[in-house]
């Protein structure tokens, strides 16, 4: 198993609050890693540290991508994305007044080159690049099942569709690692099932590595290859779903008795 991201004693403090405290684990290539824990455990904060939105207070986050390896600690969000990490947000952050297709087209930004002069004079190269952006964006929308909503404004999409559009937009950057922050929040059971299938498809067909925050235990246990459990900013358990589900600390902190 080859590691893709290695976290080593990562901490993030907000004043006196230790949102994330000395967390070490490894995200392995090609696997779905589930990140669970009660509310306020520090899951989103950890996401923000990995994707460059926050700078960790201490510790190191190392990226071991196909092209290059480097520390993620001091990078800006857009630099992190360019390395091959893409994320979705817990509270949906779409470009509300753009169409679904345009949202995905924005995701193609780093895969295209045209600058100011190219935009104004539109030489053949830029024209074909635009065509490429459009057809790729369409294909990605099809992949998440939104092909027929391409022309709708993002703010007018149904909630479940917005969640999938966020995934599509992240996919458009062509990541190696996809970070999903509670993608099933607010979805009904049948939508959750579709999402389950989609995430598996992304792993199997696109060979994506996925880090998944989720409160829906059925979903997490079902699709994760590995699970990491946080509580009060600390890592309390780690391992395959079956092992973690039987862990004493995890049951006490998060799962409750019915999972025994």
């Amino acid at each position, binding site marked *: 198993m080859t590691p893709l991201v290695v976290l080593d004693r990562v901490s993030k403090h907000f004043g006196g609050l230790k949102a994330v405290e000395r967390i070490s684990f490894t995200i392995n290539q090609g696997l779905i890693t589930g990140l669970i824990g009660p509310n306020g455990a520090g899951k989103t904060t950890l996401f923000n540290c990995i*994707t460059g*939105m926050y700078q960790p207070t201490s510790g190191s986050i190392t990226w071991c991508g196909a092209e290059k390896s480097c520390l993620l600690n001091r990078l*800006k*969000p*857009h630099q992190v*994305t*360019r390395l091959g990490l*893409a*994320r979705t*947000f817990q509270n949906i*952050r*779409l*470009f*509300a*007044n*753009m*169409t679904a*297709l*345009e949202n995905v*087209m*924005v*995701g193609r*930004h*780093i*895969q*295209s080159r*045209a600058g*100011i002069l*190219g*935009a*104004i004079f*539109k030489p053949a190269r*830029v024209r074909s*690049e*635009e065509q490429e*952006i*459009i*057809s*790729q964006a*369409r*294909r*990605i*929308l*099809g*992949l998440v099942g939104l*092909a*027929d*909503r*391409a*022309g*709708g404004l993002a703010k007018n999409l149904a909630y479940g569709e917005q969640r999938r559009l966020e995934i599509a*937009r*992240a*996919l*458009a*950057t*062509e990541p190696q690692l996809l970070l999903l922050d509670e993608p099933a929040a607010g979805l009904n059971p049948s939508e959750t099932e579709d999402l389950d299938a989609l995430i598996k498809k992304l792993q199997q*067909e*696109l060979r*994506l590595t996925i880090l998944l925050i989720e409160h829906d235990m059925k979903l997490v246990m079902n699709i994760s290859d590995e699970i990491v459990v946080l509580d009060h900013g600390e890592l309390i358990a780690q391992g395959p779903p079956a092992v973690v589900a039987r862990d004493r600390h995890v049951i006490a902190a998060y799962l409750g008795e019915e999972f025994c």
Partner: protein
Amino acid sequence: MFLLALRDACWLTLLAFPLIGFDLVQKYGETGKEIIFEWQAIGTIFIGILLIRLAAGFFKRYRIYRCPEGRLQEAKLGISNIVSKVYRLFDHRLHQRPALVTLFALAVALPFLPRVSNAALDVLTLAFIYVVLGLGLNIVVGLAGLLDLGYVGFYAVGAYGYGLLYQYWGWSFWQALPACGMIAALFGVVLGFPVLRLRGDYLAIVTLGFGEIIRIILNNWDSFTNGPNGISSIPRPTLMGLEFSRQAKEGATTFHDFLNIEYSSNHKQIFMYLLLLSMAVFTMFVVERLQHSRLGRAWIAMREDETACAAMGINTTLAKLSAFGLGACWAGFAGGFFAARQGFINPESFTFIESATILAIVVLGGMGSTVGVTIAALAVVIIPELARGFSQYRMIIFAVALVALMLFKPEGLLPAKRRMYELHPDDPNDLNHENQSVLEVTRQ
């Protein structure tokens, strides 16, 4: 439907009333003025609007709808086939270009029509300068979402750029114009750096300060800018070296001598009009292209959500600086034209009220809407001129019209519409998106 039409007609008549409903007449030998109500005009307006509104309602009823992909589809509303075909003719994107070309041709022909006065052309020339300013600010505020209240500063930089280049180095208009744009763009980028982290109200206040600083420097740096006295006798643009004056300067030729016709001050006016018209159209073209480009989408994404925009791999610092720079660049061009049109500039022309007017143009037109901003710029310059008969009341009328517009159409005259990218049925890539994965195709 009739009731709706009646309601709209009443509202619009009420709005139109202060503009054309009455006249102030000074009677001979009396002090004070008398108000004369123009009932006939009011009646005409009311009935006209009623009819138009009814017709619009009729069309709407048989309107053909857009499918989600943006392609027009035939309505299944029975008898309306012909109606829908006519509608399709006008609504389709392909037909908008001929419509625009026709409008442009009309605008070009306008100065050669009889009964078009020099004064009218002059107002339109000024209106075109505001079109350029409005569209430039539209890049910053409408597209990139950065509330800039100091835009007039870059306008001043452009105007003084030409004025000073002429005064110290004798540059001609055409030499100075590109420089005006570039200097202003440079100012835009440099002043953009300190405000990179600011948003919304804070950004507005700091940029407001920048605008004022530029004006105050121009006002006080007597030895360089000539202070409040400004710069005068700035030459007008030439047409390939031909001047539009009665007497040519040494070594130059005048337009009328070259063509061997009588001198007329109209030529100068018509030339300025056509020049600014071309500039306005050129600006529209560029802004429209930018808006639907990779960079334009990055700006709009940044306006919608800066955090998510950065998460898409977009360098928001570059996006902001390019928006500030490009926006300022157009203000610089507009400033150069302004200096050339007036022949005289001083800091008084670049007060905060100008920034506010330009911002009003962007908001009224609909943020990010090229056509909307253009119409708003024309309206904002032309309406107060039309209302000149009311002298001191005209700004009140203008204000009432603005407030009314914001109450009834808060998104602006022509809210920006997102472009629909049409599906090409003959492109096989579009159809089999289910089983082919993007990443694999592009990674090869």
